[in-house]
C-alpha cells in the first residue's frame, strides 16, 4: 500500500494530486526549485525538499536529484503529474529499478506509446484506425502517387525533418502531387541537407476528441467517456468539454471499445488518454496515447463522479478497477477553460510577474484548480497555465452559463490572461451550436471578435470611466486643500495610491 507519495511536479497539478493524497491519509513530498520557494505546492505537502535552480533541467527534470529525495524522504511512490518527467520512460524505469512505485504505465509501455511509428503499427494490428497514409517513408513521387490514390485526395506531403508548417504541402490531384513532391524535397534538402517524405490523408475541419481510459495490473480496462478538445491555439488546447456535442451513444460505445483495445494493445497500466481526430465525415482516427494524467481530467471527474487521482493510486497499489464499464454513467455536462498567463493580441505571448490580488471564482458547479493566491508569482521559467476553471451543469447551457459567470468573477491582477478570449468564444453562436474544429479560432475570426468586444466594452464604460476620473481629481485636490477631519481617513488611504 502506498503511504507516501513524492509529487515530482509544481503548480496546480501538484496541488491537485496532493489534495487526493491528503484526503486518503497518504503523506506527500513536494520538491521545489529556487523559483518556487513561495509556491503553493510547497505549503500543501507533508514534506518539502529543495531540488535546485529555477531552470527545469536543474530541478524538475533532474532525475538523480529527484531520486535522491525519494530515497531520503522514504517515499514509496512517485506521481509525475503532467509534463516534466511524466512521459519519460527512462525515469519510469529508473523508479522500477529502485523499487519505487511509479504512478503511471511501465517504462516499456510508455516507450511504445511514445514511438509514434511502433504505436501506429500496434494500433493497426488491434484494428484501431489511424490516419490513412504511407506506412513509413515513401521511396519516390510514384510511390507517393500510388498511396495518394489508395487513400484518396487531398493528401499531405510531409518532410519528417520539417515542423511548424515548413516542409508540408497539401495536394488535391496527381499533378499537384508531383509538383509538391519536388518542392518539399527541395525545401528539405536546402534546410537540412536531406529529405524524407511521408504521405498522410489531409483531413479538413477535424475535431480533437480523446478518451480517458484506465487499465489495471490484472488486465481489466475501461474507458471513462470522451472529451472534446477542439478549441486550440498552436496545437495547445484552450477549452475542453464533455460530452462532445457530436457524440451519440452508439458512437461513444463503438469508439470506447476501440480505446479499450488500444489500451490492451500497448499493455498499458494506470490512467491514460487515447487521442483521436474526428473527420468531418464522422470517421475517427487514432493519433496517440498520452501516458499520463491529462490537464483536462477534471471534466471527466465531474461527469463520472470519479476521483481520477484516487483511481491512479488504487491501480498503482495493484488493486483491480473497482467498477465495471456498465456501471459508469455520464452525468451532465462539464467545460474546462485553461486560464493562461498570456496576451491574446501578442500571438499568445507569455505574460509573467507578480499577482498581487486574485479572486478565485466559486459557486454551484464551479471548480477551480490553481496555484494562484494573492501574492503569488507567475514565473517565466514554467508554463503559462495558471488555473483550470471547470464548470458542471445538468445541461450544456447550464455548464456554459456557469462558466461565463465564473470567468466574470475571476480577477487576476498583474498579468494578461486568456479570460477575455474565452468570454468571446463562449458567447459565440458557433460555440453554442457546437461547430467545433481545431481551426475554430481562425475559422470564426475569434481574435478579431474579441478585439471588437473589448472596444465595445470600453465604449460602454464611458460614464463610469469619466466618473472615476472626476472622483480621482476630487480626492487628489481635497487631499492638498482641506483638513476636513471626516475625510482625513480616506485621504490617508488615498495616499497609498
Amino acid at each position: 500500500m502506498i503511504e507516501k507519495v513524492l509529487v515530482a511536479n509544481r503548480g496546480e497539478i501538484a496541488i491537485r494530486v496532493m489534495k487526493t493524497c491528503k484526503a486518503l491519509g497518504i503523506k506527500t513530498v513536494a520538491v521545489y526549485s529556487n523559483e518556487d520557494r513561495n509556491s503553493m505546492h510547497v505549503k500543501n505537502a507533508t514534506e518539502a525538499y529543495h531540488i535546485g535552480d529555477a531552470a527545469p533541467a536543474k530541478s524538475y527534470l533532474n532525475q538523480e536529484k529527484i531520486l535522491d529525495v525519494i530515497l531520503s524522504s522514504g517515499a514509496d511512490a512517485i506521481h509525475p503529474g503532467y509534463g516534466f518527467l511524466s512521459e519519460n520512460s527512462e525515469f519510469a524505469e529508473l523508479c522500477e529499478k529502485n523499487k519505487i512505485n511509479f504512478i503511471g504505465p511501465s517504462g516499456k509501455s510508455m516507450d511504445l506509446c511514445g514511438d509514434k511509428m511502433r504505436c501506429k503499427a500496434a494500433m493497426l494490428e488491434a484494428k484501431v484506425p489511424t490516419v490513412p497514409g504511407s506506412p513509413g517513408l515513401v521511396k519516390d513521387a510514384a510511390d507517393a502517387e500510388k498511396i495518394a490514390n489508395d487513400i484518396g485526395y487531398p493528401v499531405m506531403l510531409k518532410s519528417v525533418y520539417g515542423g511548424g508548417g515548413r516542409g508540408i504541402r497539401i495536394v488535391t490531384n496527381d499533378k499537384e502531387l508531383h509538383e509538391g513532391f519536388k518542392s518539399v524535397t527541395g525545401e528539405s534538402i536546402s534546410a537540412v541537407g536531406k529529405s524524407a517524405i511521408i504521405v498522410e490523408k489531409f483531413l479538413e475541419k477535424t475535431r480533437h476528441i480523446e478518451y480517458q481510459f484506465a487499465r489495471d495490473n490484472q488486465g481489466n480496462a475501461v474507458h471513462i467517456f470522451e472529451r472534446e478538445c477542439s478549441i486550440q491555439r498552436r496545437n495547445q488546447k484552450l477549452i475542453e468539454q464533455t460530452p462532445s456535442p457530436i457524440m451519440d451513444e452508439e458512437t461513444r460505445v463503438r469508439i470506447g471499445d476501440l480505446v479499450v483495445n488500444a489500451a490492451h494493445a500497448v499493455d498499458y497500466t494506470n490512467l491514460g488518454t487515447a487521442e483521436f481526430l474526428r473527420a468531418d465525415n464522422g470517421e475517427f482516427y487514432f493519433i496517440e496515447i498520452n501516458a499520463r494524467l491529462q490537464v483536462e481530467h477534471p471534466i471527466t471527474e465531474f461527469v463520472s463522479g470519479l476521483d481520477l487521482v484516487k483511481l491512479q493510486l488504487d491501480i498503482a497499489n495493484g488493486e483491480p478497477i473497482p467498477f465495471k464499464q456498465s456501471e459508469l454513467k455520464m452525468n451532465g455536462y462539464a467545460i474546462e477553460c485553461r486560464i493562461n498567463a498570456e496576451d491574446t493580441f501578442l500571438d499568445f505571448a507569455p505574460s509573467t510577474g507578480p499577482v498581487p490580488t486574485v479572486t478565485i471564482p466559486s459557486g454551484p458547479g464551479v471548480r477551480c484548480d490553481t496555484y494562484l493566491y494573492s501574492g503569488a508569482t507567475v514565473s517565466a521559467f514554467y508554463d503559462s497555465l495558471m488555473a483550470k476553471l471547470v464548470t458542471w451543469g445538468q445541461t450544456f447551457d447550464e455548464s456554459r452559463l456557469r462558466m461565463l459567470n465564473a470567468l466574470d468573477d475571476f480577477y487576476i491582477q498583474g498579468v494578461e490572461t486568456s479570460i477575455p478570449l474565452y468570454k468571446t468564444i463562449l458567447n459565440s453562436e458557433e460555440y453554442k451550436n457546437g461547430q467545433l474544429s481545431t481551426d475554430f479560432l481562425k475559422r470564426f475570426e475569434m481574435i478579431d471578435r474579441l478585439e471588437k468586444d473589448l472596444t465595445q466594452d470600453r465604449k460602454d464604460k464611458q460614464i463610469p470611466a469619466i466618473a472615476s476620473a472626476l472622483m480621482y481629481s476630487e480626492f487628489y485636490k481635497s487631499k492638498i486643500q482641506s483638513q476636513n477631519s471626516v475625510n482625513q481617513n480616506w485621504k490617508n488611504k488615498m495616499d497609498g495610491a
Partner: protein
Amino acid sequence: MKYKVQDSDEIVDAEIIEKISQDEYRVKIKNSEHIIKILNINSGVMEFVLDNKFHTVRYIENKTSEMKFVIDGSELAVNMNSHLDEIVYKNSGGSETGNVQLNLYSQIPGKVVSINAGEGSEVKKGDVVCVLESMKMQVTVKSHKDGVVKTIKIKEGNSVNKNDIIAEIE
C-alpha cells in the same frame, strides 16, 4: 473639464456639481446628472456606486492630460483637458506623439535570443527586429512602423523586462 474615453471619439464635458454629503456627489456628464456614492478608498482602489451600480476602479497612472485605470476589470485610458479638442487635433498631426512612436518596446519579459535587424538597417512595419524567449516559447518582436533602426538597446543573451525599449526606429 473635457474628457475622452479610449476607443470612443466623443469628447465629453463633465464636472462635479455638488458634494451632497461626506461620500456622495452629484455630477454632470454629457448633460445628464448622476449620483456617485463612494463606498471605500484603499491604496489606489476606489469603490463607488454610480446611479445604483457598483464599480471598482484601480488607478494606475495619472498624468496631466491622461489617466489610466482598471475599471471593473477592464484597463482603459481617459484623456482629459480643458482644451481637449485642440489637443486631439494636434495629436492627429503627430507632433505630440512623435516621441512615443520612435521607440519599439518589448511587450513581454524574456531573454534575447537573436537580433534580426541591426543598427542602420531599414525595416518595414511587421519586420522582425529581434526574437525573445519566455516560458519555453520564442516570440518575435516586430517593427511598429517603416523606418531605419537608429539604435538597438538590447544584447543577445541578456534579459529584457516588459516595456523595455528594444530599439529606436526613425
